[in-house]
Each structure stands twice: as structure tokens, then as C-alpha cells.
């Protein structure tokens, strides 16, 4: 049965839509379209775009590799203090990214708690390298994978696994043939959210990995640097970033909603 949507809801919803879409529209209006041909050469867009794709994909893979097992532990294990652990793990979602960047510097920087040791014994330096950008981006993206996967795991009826075991399936076989297929939509949702977040990452990256074209300057950093010297170029770079994000979200929309 459909009920009529109350008018105040319509009004607030319309304000909500305008609020979100107006800045987008304004960028489209303010973009100096006549300079389109030259804009991309000046801002080093190609380099930043390539770097953004590499960094965001690497961060997504890393987030999945670490985040999915973590979600499993949070959802299925019975160890004490899980709620505290979950709070710590998802903290980067609500923490200002620049704080994350400072924390990463203190931990993994060349003079950091662990980073100093890495640098002195193995000669590994993360700051100012693409690895640093990937680490910073993974830091903010991984919690999204953990949350999506954990909620997916919790919604799966464990009796399916019981049935698989009763029919002679070992635990690994049951995970591979029963749990993972049912978990698919949640994994996809986590991956897409993580990737979209990774594409937009700015604060942790500039604080931890620095800003150098071709090495750590992803699209958001390029936008930030270009905004004063080349405002038109900054708008075009922003539009590329927005188009990519919309593309990701639209392309995966059906996969995400399938499971719910």
C-alpha cells in the first residue's frame, strides 16, 4: 500500500537535493570551457589522473586484503573487547584525515615510532613516495570495507554453514562455496565505497606523503595546488574527479543494492 508523501518531506528533500547538487552545478557553470584545450596540459592532469587511479586501486586491494579478515574476526569471533576493537578500527571514518596523516607521520614517518626503525634497518622510507600515498589512502578507506563486510556477515544465516558441514563440507570449503557467494554483494559494496573514498582522499595524503607531481600528487592534491595559480584548471580537474566518482557509484549501484 502506498501512502501519500507529506508535503514538508518533499520540501526538505528538495532543499537537500539542491544543497548537494548546487556546488556541482556551479563548477559546471564556472568552468572556463573556452580554455578546455589548454587547461589539461597546464595542470599536469594526466600525471595526477594516472597516479590517482594507481593509488586508489592499490589502496582498495590492500583494504580488502586486510579489511575482510578483520571483519570476519569482528563478526564471528567471541574474543572479549570486540566492540572496543571495532571502534578503533572504524575511527578513521570520523577522524579528520589530517589527524590520520599526523598519526601516520608519528608512527611510520622517517622519524616515527616504527618508521625510524624501518628506515635504519631496512632503508625503507614511506613519506614522499607513492607507497606513502597508498598507505595514507588505505588508512582512510579500509574501515569502509570492514563495516560493509561485517554487516554482510552478520546478515548471513549461520545455519547454511551448519547445513554445509552436515553434508560433509570442511570449514574452508563451506566458506568458499557457501559464505563467500552470499557475501558477494557486501564485498562489492565495501570495495566500491573504499575506492570512491580513496579517489577523494586529500588530508592524510598531503600530511603524510607530501605533495609532488608524478610521485604523491593525486587529483585532489593537484586541485588544491592549482586552485590559486590556475583556477580554471582546478575546476576541470575537479570535474574529472567528480565524473569518476559518479561513474564508480552509478556503475556499481545495482550490485550494491542487490543484497539488501
Amino acid at each position, binding site marked *: 500500500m502506498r501512502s501519500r508523501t*507529506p508535503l*514538508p*518531506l518533499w*520540501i*526538505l528533500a528538495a532543499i537537500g537535493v539542491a544543497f548537494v547538487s548546487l556546488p556541482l552545478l556551479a563548477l559546471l557553470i564556472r568552468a572556463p570551457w573556452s580554455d578546455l584545450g589548454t587547461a589539461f596540459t597546464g595542470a599536469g592532469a594526466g600525471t595526477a589522473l594516472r597516479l590517482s587511479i594507481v593509488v586508489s586501486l592499490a589502496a582498495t586491494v590492500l583494504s580488502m586484503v586486510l579489511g575482510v579478515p578483520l571483519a570476519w574476526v569482528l563478526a564471528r569471533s567471541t574474543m572479549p573487547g570486540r566492540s572496543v576493537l571495532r571502534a578503533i578500527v572504524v575511527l578513521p571514518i570520523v577522524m579528520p584525515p589530517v589527524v590520520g596523516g599526523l598519526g601516520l*607521520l*608519528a608512527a611510520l*614517518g*622517517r*622519524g616515527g615510532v616504527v618508521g625510524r626503525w624501518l628506515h635504519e634497518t631496512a632503508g625503507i622510507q614511506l*613519506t*614522499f613516495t607513492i607507497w606513502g600515498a597508498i598507505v595514507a589512502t588505505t588508512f582512510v578507506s579500509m574501515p569502509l570495507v570492514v563495516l560493509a563486510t561485517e554487516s554482510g556477515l552478520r546478515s548471513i544465516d549461520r545455519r547454511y554453514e551448519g547445513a554445509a558441514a552436515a553434508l560433509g563440507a570442511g570449514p574452508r570449503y563451506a566458506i568458499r562455496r557457501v559464505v563467500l557467494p552470499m557475501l558477494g554483494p557486501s564485498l562489492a559494496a565495501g570495495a566500491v565505497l573504499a575506492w570512491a573514498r580513496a579517489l577523494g582522499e586529500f588530508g592524510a595524503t*598531503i600530511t603524510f*606523503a*607530501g*605533495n*609532488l*607531481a608524478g*610521485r*604523491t600528487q593525486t587529483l585532489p592534491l593537484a586541485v*588544491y*595546488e592549482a*586552485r*590559486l*595559480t590556475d583556477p580554471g584548471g582546478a575546476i576541470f580537474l575537479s570535474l574529472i574527479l567528480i565524473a569518476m566518482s559518479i561513474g564508480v557509484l552509478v556503475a556499481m549501484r545495482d550490485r550494491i543494492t542487490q543484497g539488501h
Partner: protein
Amino acid sequence: MRVFLAMVVVLPLLAACGGTSATTDETSELTVFAASSLTDVFTERIGPAFEAEHDGVRVVFNLGASDSLAAQIRSEGTADVFASASGTWMDAVADDPGITGRADFAQNRLVIVTPPGNPAGIAAIEDLSEPGVQLVLAAEGVPVGDYAREALANAGTLDGTLANVVSNEEDNASVLAKIAAGEADAGIVYESDVSAAAGSDVNAVEIGDDVNVIATYPIAVVSGAPSTELAAVFVAYVTGPDGQAALASYGFDPAT
């Protein structure tokens, strides 16, 4: 439900009405946009001293790279006073929205900073081009970043040194933070950053007078600002004896 929704719509409106009628003018606020290299002297000394001299005045600082500040003033126009690290960005604000009472109030020189212990053994500006040195500069367009490139060009080692740059930071304070954390081998910042009063945990290496660049800081009242009268008083304070003494103790040279 309907009542709740009506409240959601109406309450903010009521709150907005209440807000305007409740506003009083007991304290006046002065908004000062200042280059990030002025952070310590303005927030620790000049701001508090000015507030102490003028009852009911609250000085609010917006600190950042002068280029960013100029862009904010041009688009939003909320500054009463602009203190810039370069004449270029003051010119931009003079052009739009306009300024009055412009005066140069301080000078600053460049200095090389390294982490304590100077791990890369930097002794002069030419050493910054040695292979393997990790150098952090402020980005182009940021005054201290442009001055640093000018000094490197004066030393004749610009190209080789730029190859060693590992990060173009957003402002002077970010360069200093990276060096204080020991992340890079060297950076170029203002001499005032390494003064005793600034209390920074870095090692300083002088840049010779023959290649060094002198940054001149202009200050002015921004036209159309909410409190131009108070702004003029603040500008007079900064250019006056008390302001100048504070600046000198933080490592700034007087404007010539």
C-alpha cells in the same frame, strides 16, 4: 509525525529570528588575515597585547599562506586587516576589494632548516643540490616558496636543487613541520621561524647575503571591512613601537 515535521521546518526559522534580535555589540571583533610566518608573533604577543589595550575587543586571526588568504579576501571579503608575506598578494587585494593605510611593517630573510643533527650535512645553499638530499619547499605561488626558488636561482643551483624536492608544501608552517618531524633533510623557511622566541626544534643554516632574498611584509585595512576604524588602530599598533619591538623579538627585521 505531521506535527514533528512541521516543527522541523519551523524551529530553525524561530531560532533564526531569535538569533538576530539577541545580537548585542558589547564586544567588537577584529578579523586579521595574516601570513602563516606571522603566526607566533601575532597570536602570542601582538594579539593579546592589543586586546589588553582595547577593552572589549577580540582579535581573531586567520592564518595561512598569503596567496590563499588573498583569494579568500577577494571572494568572501570578511577580513578587516590583511598582513601579507609579499607585496604581490597585497597588490591583488588592493586591486579587489581595495585597501587603505598600506604600510610595510617587517622584513624577513630566508634560512635553510634541517632536522636536529643535520643528517645530510648541509652547510650552504649549494649543498641542497647534492644527489640524495631530500628537500621540502613551499609550493610555487606561496610567497616563501617563490622566494626560495629565487634564492636558489641566485645561487645558480635551481635546476639541480629542484630535482631533490620531495614535496611542495601548502604553506611555510607545513615546511617547518616536515623538518621538525625529521621527515626530510632540509627545507627553506623564514629566519623568524628559527628565532629563539619561535622555539622551533630545528637546526638553522644561514644563506649568504649575496644570494638571500629579503621578504617585505605589507599590512593594510581591507576596504568594505566590518570594522575599518578599529582595523586602522590595529595597523597603527603593528607599525608602532610596541608592535615593532614584538616583531624584532621574534626575529623579524624592521622594514626600511
